[in-house]
């Protein structure tokens, strides 16, 4: 029963996506870009589950069709290879996000809470949020259990020190369209303004360009 329901879910997702008029190939492009952005950005980026689900829908669609194709058919091996490529892309993307969530769990949850309070869009998807909360809970539980053996007063200051992503790390960025007035901050608090042409590539601190990634004006490479 479960599988049937899932398949229907997938189909409805697909039709939703078609309304915004993306071909499968375009979705794949978007997924690749999201994958690279997530890979190189130091912080977690707004999730792209609409793309992920659309691509997963494509995968199960192709899989279904493959059952009718003979084993020695050339089509089969090519489709199979492509499926493997797509699966790699999606799972690598999801795994990278989980890794970030595990590393920065306290910080990310705090940010997500602030976002909810301000009524902003959450960066994590529902399931990721659930995972993050469960992960934090077991981490807390683990520390409580272990610190139980601590002689004397149990230290608590460490809890105030969050592990946060280093948003100053340097990234390679490619401008997708013309961007004027990128502020590059220098150490002596001077700022320099740089204009980027379409397609130009630059090595720059993420803190100066993070918002261009989120607003889809440029991508990381």
């Amino acid at each position, binding site marked *: 029963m479960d599988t049937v329901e899932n398949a229907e879910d997938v189909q409805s997702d697909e039709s939703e996506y078609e309304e915004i008029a993306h071909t*499968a*190939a375009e979705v*794949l492009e978007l997924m*690749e870009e999201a994958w690279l952005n997530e*890979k190189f950005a130091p912080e977690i980026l707004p999730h792209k589950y609409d793309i992920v689900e659309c*691509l997963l829908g*494509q*995968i199960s669609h*192709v899989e279904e069709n493959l059952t009718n194709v003979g084993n020695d058919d*050339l*089509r089969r*091996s*090519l*489709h199979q*290879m*492509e499926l493997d*490529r*797509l699966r*790699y892309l999606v799972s690598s993307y999801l795994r990278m996000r989980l890794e970030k969530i595990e590393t920065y769990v306290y910080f990310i949850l705090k940010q997500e809470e602030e976002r909810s309070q301000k009524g902003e869009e959450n960066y994590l998807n529902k399931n990721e949020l659930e995972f993050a909360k469960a992960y934090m809970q077991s981490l807390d539980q683990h520390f409580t259990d272990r610190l139980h053996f601590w002689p004397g007063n149990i230290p608590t*200051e460490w809890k*105030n*020190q969050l592990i*946060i992503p*280093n948003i*100053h*790390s*340097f*990234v*390679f960025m490619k401008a997708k369209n013309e961007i004027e007035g990128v502020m*590059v*901050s*220098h*150490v002596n608090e001077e700022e*320099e303004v*740089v204009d980027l042409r379409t397609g*130009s*590539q*630059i*090595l*720059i*601190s993420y803190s*100066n360009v993070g918002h261009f990634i989120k607003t889809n004006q440029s991508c990381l*490479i």
Partner: protein
Amino acid sequence: MNPEEVEFLGEKQLISIIPTFNSSTIHLVSGDIGPFRASLPVNVPLWVAVNLKQQRKCKIQPPDWMDVEQLELLKEAEKASRNFVKMPSEHYMIEGKLLLSIATDDIARADEVRTIIKDIWDIRMAKLRSSVNTLITGKSYGNVDNLTIMEINSMRPLIPHAMDQIHRMKMERPRFSTPSQSTSLGLLNSSTVISTFK
């Protein structure tokens, strides 16, 4: 990113093949390929071409730039220019490596092509290494126009990290003169917190 992942990205580049079989259009997620008619050229992604070639189901038509004369010109241009010359393909190294390893019989003067591509790569990498110094001592950003993904990737483990460390060291200094930044935590703690926060 490891080189295999760069290759993964490069493999979607289209390339022309001459199939030795017949088949109707294949609807891949990344786009339709075919129809295949024996001895009529058709464009397919590189990974399909590699796969078909390995099954001996096609001949590969090397891209226009994979030609000794053109590559020689490119090499001279690269030598003469102080900046990086735009490469004929965003993934020239990957295409070169893959095609020269599986389709040597389809490429004219394959050994010479291989040597020149390697030369161009070496020239560019040497340029890259010598520009690292200006990059690190100079501004807090650097232009990397015309560098291909593979080249960018080869400097990824070192340069962004080095620039980040320099940035951290520069940020450390002013703090000692402004004690107002220290928080209720011990000085040592606050410095770690601030240096990561900034």
